């Protein structure tokens, strides 16, 4: 009885946080979209869905998500194999390089691809080719983003599959390919499905990339919601679209949870270090070099071009775009503050969001440490929701709910960190929970028998063990907060932009200087995020969470 009371006490803050900043805004959106004067208006759903423009957006959203997912699997599955089975010099470095894009802000990725394939981009200079008016720019950017998702999810499992299973099949008379198809592929199936769903989910709700690379031609649901709200001020339509997206995302998340459960069934797993070997024969070397080439062209080149463009001033290479970041006057007059201020805003918001996410996520993880009944599993799943629910939904929800007393946060500095923390909490919980659950309960009992009060037990036994996980969680929450765009763009005050918001604004204006400054700001943002990630990679051990 007392244990349950303690649990509920720990959960009180996370529950209030989620009720106020997630459930309430989402409910308000549903209310705004589907009711009128207290009556349900389901007719609106059919009215919005009957609009050919909206249908086009919906169709494109599904199509590009499916195409991006297929393309990502095609490009990344060989990579997953290479990372799982081959041992080669520089593997650690290459693995880190592959992971960097995943934590990069969408805005940075958008500008990097603009610098590569857009007007005046590298391809334009070399061959006069431009892709930014085609859907290819969006698809390639999505592959860039999600390459790591596939390599980590599928490759992680693949590296632990016992190769002797395949050998057993070979001895029983199966050919090389037949052995792979009948033994390895079925074992990998659920992991591939989970990765594919993850990629589909991320690209289905893609916002920053499409906003920057899609131009006026291509628009996803997420971008359309933003447009309906910010440009046309058509809140009911935006709300209906949000509801549609919310339902779709819930379906995808449920499907994902199901595949994750299936992934854990009765596989023989071995230590990954034992399964990797040097490539043998021409075919394997070709595969390795092919993978390296793909990584260089698709993952490294856009970032290099971004950095190069940020130094390519009107009068040759120089730091002019960086030095002008500090003054508001040098930008055109619509930019109310110096772009460099956005860096300090971002860091301050990011720090505050990280602190909130750590407190909320940490309390939730502590309460969920002991596996419980259906209620606890439900709460566990509830905490995951913001990860999949689109950022624009959150930002839009904040906009229409937190604007009147008693919760009038419109002018509060805390509005942005609260929204960013909402996205950070799932990362904190997912990182901490496996580590906390791995602590042997009898260690806590041993400490209690020796005279440690429950609080001392937590401090003396749990904390030393989760310290590393806590740092990793903090790093992730910080990186995610720094890059957060979809929600922040709704609620950041014009005179207090974050880095991604400032980049998007600069890109939205004409002029060489604005473009160059956008590249310079994106480079800064990339350096901060990549730095955070690389620091985490050094801390990471095999047991620290799922991300």
């Amino acid at each position, binding site marked *: 009885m007392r244990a349950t009371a303690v649990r509920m006490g720990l959960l009180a803050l996370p529950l209030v946080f989620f009720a106020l900043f997630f459930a309430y805004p989402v409910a308000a959106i549903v209310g705004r979209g589907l009711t009128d004067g207290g009556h349900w208006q389901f007719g609106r759903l059919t009215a919005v869905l009957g609009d050919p423009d909206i249908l086009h957006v919906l169709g494109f959203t599904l199509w590009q998500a499916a195409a991006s997912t297929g393309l990502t699997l095609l490009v990344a599955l060989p990579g997953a194999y290479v990372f799982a089975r081959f041992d080669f010099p520089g593997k650690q470095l290459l693995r880190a390089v592959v992971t960097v894009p995943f934590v990069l802000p969408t805005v940075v990725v958008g500008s990097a691809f603009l610098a590569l394939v857009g007007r005046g981009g590298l391809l334009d200079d070399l061959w006069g080719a431009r892709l930014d008016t085609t859907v290819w720019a969006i698809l390639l950017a999505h592959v860039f983003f999600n390459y790591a998702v596939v390599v980590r999810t599928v490759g992680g499992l693949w590296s632990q599959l016992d190769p002797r299973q395949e050998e057993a099949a070979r001895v029983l008379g199966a050919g090389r390919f037949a052995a792979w198809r009948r033994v390895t592929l079925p074992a990998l199936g659920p992991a591939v499905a989970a990765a594919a769903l993850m990629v589909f989910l991320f690209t289905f709700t893609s916002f920053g990339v499409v906003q920057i690379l899609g131009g006026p031609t291509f628009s996803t649901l997420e971008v359309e919601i933003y447009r309906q709200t910010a440009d046309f001020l058509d809140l009911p339509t935006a709300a209906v679209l949000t509801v549609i997206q919310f339902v779709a995302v819930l379906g995808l998340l449920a499907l994902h949870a199901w595949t994750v459960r299936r992934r854990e069934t009765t596989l023989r797993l071995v230590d990954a270090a034992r399964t990797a070997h040097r490539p043998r024969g021409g075919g394997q070397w070709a595969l390795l070099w092919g993978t390296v080439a793909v990584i260089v062209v698709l993952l490294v080149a856009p970032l290099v071009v971004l950095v190069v463009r940020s130094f390519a001033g009107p009068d040759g290479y120089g730091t002019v775009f960086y030095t002008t970041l500090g003054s508001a006057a040098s930008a055109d007059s619509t930019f109310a503050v110096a772009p460099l201020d956005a860096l300090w805003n971002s860091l301050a918001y990011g720090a505050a969001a990280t602190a909130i996410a750590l407190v909320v996520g940490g309390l939730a993880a502590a309460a969920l440490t002991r596996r419980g009944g259906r209620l606890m599993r439900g709460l566990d799943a509830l905490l995951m929701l913001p990860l999949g629910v689109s950022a624009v939904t959150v930002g839009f929800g904040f906009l229409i709910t937190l604007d009147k007393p008693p919760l009038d946060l419109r002018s509060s500095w805390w509005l942005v960190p609260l929204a960013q923390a909402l996205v950070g909490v799932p990362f904190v919980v997912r990182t901490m929970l496996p580590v906390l659950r791995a602590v*042997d309960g*009898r*260690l806590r*009992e*041993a*400490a*209690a*028998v*020796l*005279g*440690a*009060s*429950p609080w*001392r*037990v937590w401090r*003396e*036994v749990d904390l*030393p*063990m989760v310290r590393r996980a806590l740092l990793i969680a903090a790093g992730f929450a910080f990186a995610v907060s720094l890059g957060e765009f979809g929600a922040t763009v709704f609620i950041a005050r014009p005179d207090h932009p974050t880095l991604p918001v400032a980049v998007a604004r600069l890109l939205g204006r004409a002029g060489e200087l604005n473009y160059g400054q956008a590249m310079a700001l994106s480079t800064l943002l990339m350096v901060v995020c990549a730095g955070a990630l690389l620091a985490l990679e050094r801390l990471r051990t095999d047991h620290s969470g799922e991300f």
Partner: protein
Amino acid sequence: MTATTMARATERRDLLSLDGVTVRFGGHGAPAALDAVDLGIAAHEIVCVLGPSGSGKSTLLRVVAGLQAADSGRVVLEGRDQARVPTHRRGVGLMFQDHQLFPQRDVAGNVAFGLRMRGARRAEQDRTVAELLDLVGLPGAARRAVGSLSGGEQQRVALARALAPSPRLLMLDEPLGQLDRGLRERLVVELRGLFRTLGTTVLAVTHDQGEAFALADRVVVMQNGGIAQTGTPLEVWQRPATEFVARFLGFDNVVEATVRGRAAATPWGTVPVLHGAEDGPCRLLVRPAGVRLTPPEDGLPCTVTSRTFRGTHVALLLQPEQGPQLEAACMLGDAPEPGQRVGVRFVPEDVVVLGAAREGAPGDGGPNPGAPSLGATGEQSE
């Protein structure tokens, strides 16, 4: 409280006493892990709870430590009911089965943990740690990482850690369970000597009768959450109270019998019993040492089925002409060969009239799976 514990509580003041402690996992109606257990332990006494796994002995320790709440009954320590006292204020020590040393602290950090929790000064901590490490035979190990210790060394550190805060009651859960046989036999002697010197009150649980008999002043045999017998090691060994206890101790010569005066009628014929046994039907144990071999024409005629060398003696399995198989122990020199015909005579001192099995514990009459069964292995042992 039963009449016997009532009587004992009045004649001496127990350090720990349990009154009708009951624990059920899984709500009402579920079988009890502890079923109305009454137990008292005097200061400086070493009590060993002996029982097969699942008999509730670990739960007993957890209830006393406050790690498991009792569904009913009272736990009283030095006259104070512990119901509302949380684990960390009970002032008892518990040594876990697999030690549960804190992996991120070194040996000294582990041993000093309890002292730190009590707010002891740094100097006092250091002094106590050094003393205890000397005492358990690990001088100078203070700065070693616990991961680098062998099983026996970990066991010693765990003991030092449990002793450091001077608990009024020290509890040991299978203290030597994970160590190999030679080390166990040495450590159990060391432990008893140590507890005697320090005057520690000890409540230990184990499934190993050798460990229990070597360590304890008093042995408590548990069966299905209840107490089947308590007594000194000698009493329990010589006079097992029930068939369950007898079979748990490895005695398999148990048969139906009817006592009349100084003799009992059994499937093996008439067996002499000591004076004082109640007349009527009962279960009867003949300890193997009480089965004496005679020439075939002098006693119950038997055929030797198998012969197993046991170090100090030879265990024989005999098939009498009537009744179930009989186990006998004889000296190394005069053991007959399998197939040989012998006669058997029973010694009254080694015949024990057993009490009825504990109420509510059906199915305990069967052979104990943990005890060696000669019938199954006898053929290969020759």
